[in-house]
């Protein structure tokens, strides 16, 4: 168990760092307004606050992540042998992503699935950005208060319906006996139903459909605070509409765009429902592979390693977006 105990060391170091930081700041000259945390909240409340937050950040956030990472560096063993002499640190789970452990060949299936997942998620993110931007702009800049409120309501209501049922509704629409195929055959465009689910159209639509709202709200919030006069001024100067967007609105809405893209990408790449219910039978979605390691192969270490690879990809994407739009994390997520 000793290597697993490592997971506990990191948070301990972080807490120590926090404590040292507070000591150091307290030492930085006398601040007449300063009251210690426990003075300001009372002992009982202070302890309750710190306790709750410590429980959350340690036991619900950092420790499980770290523990998962540690797990991914372990071999797959039956429960009886865990912590035994065979339970040594290994990177086998990670190499198995590249090289198939059974036959030593390149693990093209998994690598392909990974790249496919990332590319599709990024594409869906971009599509949603394009679909949502005009509406967000309209709501934020030209809609009347009444109208905007109604539109908001219209946007929110469908989202009370959960992800699974929303995927189900798309499936009903796109199935071979579904309304769209009925319509296409009715007007004679095709005579046999098109297999929208088998060719992954369903999955694309499902991923986009599930995350529309996630994109529109950050965009709306960002554009809303833009001063209307700036747009008027640009228009007065004779800028065509696309230049106004390129030079005024989009630069201003950057934090909203970064935030929306980050969230949509993360949710798409991590989604299970759409690929499962709307994808073709041969579609290999990376999240589904992770899922199968847990529920079919019962290979937790390898599943953990794959989950970590997915997490790393998401973090990389977030960093990339923040760098691309030159915004800080705090601006992007509010």
């Amino acid at each position: 168990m000793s290597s697993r105990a490592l997971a506990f060391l990191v948070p301990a170091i972080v807490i120590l760092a926090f404590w040292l930081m507070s000591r150091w700041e307290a030492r930085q000259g006398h601040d007449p307004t300063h009251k210690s945390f426990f003075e300001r909240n009372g002992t009982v409340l202070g302890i309750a606050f710190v306790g709750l937050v410590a429980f959350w950040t340690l036991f619900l956030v950092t420790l499980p992540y770290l523990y998962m990472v540690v797990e991914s560096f372990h071999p797959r063993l039956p429960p009886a042998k865990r912590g035994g002499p065979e339970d040594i640190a290994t990177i086998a789970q990670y190499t198995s992503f590249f090289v198939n452990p059974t036959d030593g060949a390149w693990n093209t299936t998994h690598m392909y699935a990974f790249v496919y997942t990332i590319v599709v998620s990024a594409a869906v993110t971009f599509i949603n950005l394009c679909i949502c931007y005009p509406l967000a702009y309209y709501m934020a800049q030209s809609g009347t208060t009444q109208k905007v409120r109604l539109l908001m309501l219209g946007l929110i209501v469908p989202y009370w319906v959960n992800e699974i049922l929303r995927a189900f509704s798309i499936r009903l629409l796109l199935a071979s006996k579904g309304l769209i195929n009925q319509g296409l055959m009715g007007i004679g465009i095709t005579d046999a139903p098109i297999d929208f689910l088998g060719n992954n159209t369903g999955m694309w639509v499902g991923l986009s459909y599930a995350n529309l709202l996630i994109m529109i709200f950050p965009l709306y919030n960002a554009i809303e605070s833009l001063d209307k006069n700036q747009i008027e001024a640009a228009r007065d100067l004779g800028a065509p509409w696309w230049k106004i967007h390129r030079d005024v609105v989009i630069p201003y809405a950057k934090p909203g765009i970064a935030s929306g893209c980050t969230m949509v990408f993360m949710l798409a790449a991590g989604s299970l429902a759409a690929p499962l219910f709307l994808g073709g039978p041969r579609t290999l979605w990376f999240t589904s592979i992770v899922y199968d390691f847990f529920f079919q192969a019962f290979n937790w270490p390898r599943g953990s390693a794959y989950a970590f690879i997915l997490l790393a990809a998401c973090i990389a994407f977030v960093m990339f977006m923040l760098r691309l739009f030159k915004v800080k994390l705090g601006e992007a997520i509010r």
Partner: protein
Amino acid sequence: MTSGTVMKGMLGFYIFLFFLYLFGPLMVMGVTAFNTPSYPQAVPFESFTLDWFVKLWNHRAMMEGLVNSIIIGLGVVVLSVPIGLAASIIMNQIYHRARSLFYLVTISPLLTPGVIIGISTVIFWKDAFGLTEFTKDTFYKGIILSILGQSSFVAAYCLLIIMARLTRFDRAQEEAALDLGATYPQVFWHILLPFLKPALFSAGVIAFLSSFENYNTTTFAILADKTLVTVLAGEVRQGTTPALSALAVIIIGLSLAGAVIYEVLKRREEAAASAMKERARLAERGELELA
């Protein structure tokens, strides 16, 4: 002139398409809930029926799942809202330098795919609860793991919602109460908490709904148990039945009702506020005449 009309028409068409995309699938699904064929279809509409709602009511697994979902939802509210509150207060008081690190840690669950939260929750708590026989038997349960796993990110939502209101708190109110002799805990209970009440309420609603709807985290954390959503997922995987459409109709109906109630309450509140402002204006005028 004409280009303006064209633009307007295009905009209207675009908004129409957008909402068709948003509502179309749901409406089609809604129609299938009332149509007799056992394969959910909207057209041709054979004849009207409510059988699918009855089927839904008699679906044992789904009802069990519903009960579990509600328990988990309430558990998540009870755990996440206080955490969000505590975290927002700490965030507000913490030293500048430490704040960004604290922010990063607390916000990270929102940037992590739900699947990974579910996996890490199971792996960690299996060993943590597995330390003793007693904790393993009492706590290593799907419902408890789901509450813990979901709270990890739901608490972050709560933090953001409560934080947004807390930053608008006027520190002078706190000082006024202190100056009148209140202790710090009294300030918290008498002044700060009532001020935050609307945010706490929204946080609670959001927490319950996001827990209720969650699939990605729950599907791991629920272990051998089930929630409404995991049962649904199983059903959708196996095939399609209009009973699912019926469920969607109920959910949409409930949320529309909720939206209407919310709107009415909000209107009433606004009316009361403007009446108050009017009275203040009258009082102001009366006073100026006196002075």
